[in-house]
């Protein structure tokens, strides 16, 4: 295949990575931005989303013979809600009791990481299990070539994508727009932004800060779970799948600017596309190395991130 189609393929793969990463990292950014909690268990909420998606789709398929598309739609609704509920419960039982103290929450979320991982191993097992995509039509893509009669369209062998991958990109974009609308144009978003700025004053104006915190922690986990449900038909659900999304989310959140959701999304697109291109042309390991070097450079030369605000 020529370089042009090869590059387009790499960018398409990178777009899928970027879409899922943007959702997952947005969850981490919201939690850090509001609670100042470095949630080391965020990758496990991603994993829980995938595992819940497997339980929902396989359960509906085996017990009620539900076709893949409606079963997947159910998973897309149930898995983030269930994951968000687990996270909100963890917030009430653990984080709120240690007063969201930055150092202690790191240790607490490391503990949470292992609890969730081992509980999943005990109940779901060590196998990697697939979730059937709701649709997966192969879409061949055209390319141009200059012949003796000028430019002409042709269909290079192997140059294409699937309808599901395009759906993942579109769905993630749609969900991020919904998230933006929620934060900017709803009463709940207003309450969340006010609480983020001044916890005491929010409380003095009737806002139940602890409930907002539990909701935000749940929302952050639900976003990770949404990313996982979207990607699980491409990957597989496994109890150790949370490590990579956690590392990549931290990289993206630091590059984007700690707590900046918009910066996180832009950084996710940059890192995701770069990951796709480097993985296709070189290797996936090199892509991770480059991302890690990028985050180190950002930490040295621009510690508040590319889009974050310098702290006073």
């Amino acid at each position, binding site marked *: 295949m020529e370089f042009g189609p090869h590059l387009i393929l790499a960018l398409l793969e990178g777009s899928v990575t970027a879409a899922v990463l943007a959702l997952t990292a947005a969850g981490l950014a919201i939690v850090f931005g509001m609670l100042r909690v470095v949630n080391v268990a965020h990758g496990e909420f991603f994993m829980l989303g995938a595992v819940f998606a497997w339980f929902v789709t396989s359960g509906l398929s085996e017990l009620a013979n539900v076709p893949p598309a409606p079963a997947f739609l159910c998973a897309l609704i149930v898995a983030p809600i269930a994951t968000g509920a687990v996270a909100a419960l963890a917030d009430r039982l653990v984080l709120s009791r240690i007063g969201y103290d930055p150092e202690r929450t790191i240790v607490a979320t490391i503990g949470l990481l292992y609890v969730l991982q081992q509980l999943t191993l005990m109940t779901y097992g060590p196998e990697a299990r697939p979730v059937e995509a709701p649709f997966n039509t192969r879409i061949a893509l055209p390319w141009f070539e200059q012949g003796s009669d000028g430019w002409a369209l042709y269909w290079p062998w192997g140059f294409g994508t699937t309808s599901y991958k395009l759906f993942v990109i579109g769905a993630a974009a749609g969900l991020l727009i919904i998230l933006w609308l929620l934060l900017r144009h709803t009463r709940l978003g*207003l*309450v969340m*932004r*006010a609480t983020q700025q001044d916890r*005491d004053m929010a409380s*003095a*104006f009737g806002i139940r800060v602890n409930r907002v915190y539990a909701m935000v922690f749940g929302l952050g986990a639900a976003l990770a779970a949404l990313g996982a449900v979207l990607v699980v038909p491409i990957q597989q659900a496994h109890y150790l799948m949370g490590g990579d999304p956690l590392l990549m989310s931290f990289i993206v959140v630091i590059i984007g600017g700690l707590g900046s959701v918009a910066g996180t999304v832009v950084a996710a697109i940059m890192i995701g596309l770069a990951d796709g291109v480097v993985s296709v042309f070189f290797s996936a390991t090199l892509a991770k190395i480059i991302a890690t070097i990028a985050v180190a450079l950002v930490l040295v030369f621009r510690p508040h991130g590319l889009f974050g605000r310098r702290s006073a």
Partner: protein
Amino acid sequence: MMLRVESIDVGYGTAQVLYGLSFSAQPGQITCLLGRNGAGKTTTLHALMGLLPLMAGEIRLGSTTISGLAAPDVVKQGIALVPQGRRLFGALSVAENIEIGLMASPKQGKTEHRRNRSRVLELFPRLKERLGQQASTLSGGEQQMLATARALCVEPQVLLLDEPTEGLQPSIAQQLRDVSRELARQGVAVVLVEQHLDTVLELADSAVLIESGRLVRTLSAEQLKNNPSLVTRHLGI
């Protein structure tokens, strides 16, 4: 409704700041809390608002005991705070800051909110022209107006004002003094922390002198006017 503070002890962790402080604030009157920096005036307001827990004592609004209530429950009882340094939600717009105040109002519903919003914007017409502007970009005077407007959205029975005229140009300070007087005339119990002697003498119906977290004495408006040197001494001027 009368606010009654009875022998309260308040502190931050183990560091006690207030020792058995007692006073009352009558509806329709302005009660000034006077004292040097660090005397415990702001701590008193924060304790009244439920932002700091009491170590001992009791706070009552009418016949209801409000000590022990969390801040969101205190504001629902009709107590609102205009904090020192304004403490606006700086990244939110003027309209959004007002919306936060409206959410705390005991009267919910779209019509009530619209009426309430118009009422506070009539008091501070300059805010009406800046509804879409980010609060942190307002001038100091406009920020103080917004902090006051936000608290008035609660339709409070007791309004706690912490140095509202600090650092403001005289015309805006006068406007805020007029608003405080008008609120008291409407039956609100105003508790004012103030360092300017002129403001104290102009507004106070009674004054509570605090020194090192302890009540020194309570003065009527007449006693204040007859003993300005006493006030001066306790303000540390």
